């Protein structure tokens, strides 16, 4: 069987299957990013709290997330919790739990960093104008926090999208897994692996590149 391996992508519904896998990847990433933004905001309140315990919990949480490989966390939730507590969580739910646990801490830390990097004088001159605490946040602090946050948050989003590739290890059929299935079917086509993985690479690029271009555009506009 001679010929370009790329042709197998156009056989039957192979390409559609890949796109289906990509949708699983994206759905997972979108849910995770959405939840991480919401919980990350709450996490930042925890880190900014004056309460010692709240601070300690957030500190510990962040350290765990930083030093523990995501794959280990996935195994703990998917395999460990099932045995330990008798939970029957499917792969995708486990992935959302683990990635949100990770994204929450990192997003929360980014929000904290952006907010606290705004000079204290900004708050004071807004206060001197007679604005209320709420108005100071709404008109002065939050807009500036978002500007500082955007590049880093987008970077985190692309990292989350890329890291979802790990979920194939806990039996979630996302784009990479679909690719491997296709390669498996065409094992007699020696260059199939190259082309399939190359197309997957392109798909990731097409997803992540516009996001980071948007970030660069916003940075330029706000500079």
């Amino acid at each position: 069987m001679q010929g370009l391996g790329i042709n197998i992508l156009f056989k039957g519904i192979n390409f559609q299957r890949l796109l289906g896998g990509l949708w699983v990847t994206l759905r997972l990433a979108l849910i995770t990013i959405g939840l991480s933004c919401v919980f990350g905001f709450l996490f930042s309140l925890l880190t900014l709290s004056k309460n010692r315990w709240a601070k300690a919990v957030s500190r510990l949480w962040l350290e765990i997330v930083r030093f523990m490989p995501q794959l280990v966390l996935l195994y703990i939730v998917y395999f460990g919790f099932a045995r330990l507590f008798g939970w029957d969580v499917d792969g995708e739910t486990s992935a959302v739990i683990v990635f949100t646990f990770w994204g929450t801490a990192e997003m929360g830390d980014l929000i904290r960093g952006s907010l606290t990097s705004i000079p204290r004088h900004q708050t004071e001159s807004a206060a001197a104008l007679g604005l209320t605490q709420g108005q100071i946040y709404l008109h002065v602090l939050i807009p500036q926090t978002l500007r500082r946050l955007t590049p880093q948050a987008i970077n985190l989003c692309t990292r989350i999208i890329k890291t979802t590739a790990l979920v194939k290890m806990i039996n979630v059929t996302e784009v990479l897994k679909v690719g491997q299935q296709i390669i498996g079917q065409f094992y007699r086509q020696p260059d199939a692996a190259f082309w399939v993985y190359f197309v997957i690479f392109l798909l990731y690029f097409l997803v992540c590149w516009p996001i980071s271009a948007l970030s660069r555009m916003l940075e330029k506009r706000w500079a």
Partner: protein
Amino acid sequence: MTDAILRVQDIRKSFDGNGVLQGVSLDIREGEVVVIVGPSGCGKSTLLRCINGLEAIDSGEIWLRDEKISGQTKNLHLVRQKIGMVFQSYDLFPHMKVMDNLLLGPTKALNRPRQEAEAEALEMLDRVGLKEKAYVFPRTLSGGQKQRVALVRAMLMKPEILLLDEITAALDPEMVSEVLNVVIDLANSGMTMAIVTHEMRFAEAVADRVVFIEDGLIVEEAPPEVFFHAPSTERAQRFLQSFTYTSRRRP
């Protein structure tokens, strides 16, 4: 003195056991310009920050007309609407154009209609020579221009009194006068002001009264012509001497 609009009565403030203000009393009359001078760390900036409620005082009282403004926490923003303050580092809001910086207070804190406030803002900008900068971002302005915008921003709130905290300390020397001339204009238009500054010539030109603070206490209070030429206390004399130099090429 019954015609004082601001009365500071025996206020004390310490940071970590360090007495920065150790019983300061000061009355400011309507239309009066009081310049506060003194060595670094003497408490003069803290005094302004306490008046505006940015620092809570430990004891004493501060009155604005018939209202006791110290010890308030709930309606502090209402008090601050009547007391303008400009800082050393100008602190325009970098994400807003000059006009939006100017209108934030009038439209959000005072709920004035935007159009009316905008017309007034343009007029004030024109007075300080910055009308053509109304719709640019602050980052395109020089330090002196930023500080003039900050002055206009404070004035648009129509404060009863304006507090200026070393507003030229961060500026290049050639920009100092463009800012201080605006302040002298404000003084001439009858604005009540309390000014902390290191610019002694400006102090002498603008002040109705000079207050010299050292180690958290008012050491001397006098009209500028007296304070700068015949200070009565030895400490004020020593302070003023630090601004003069003797030439090394003496015959």
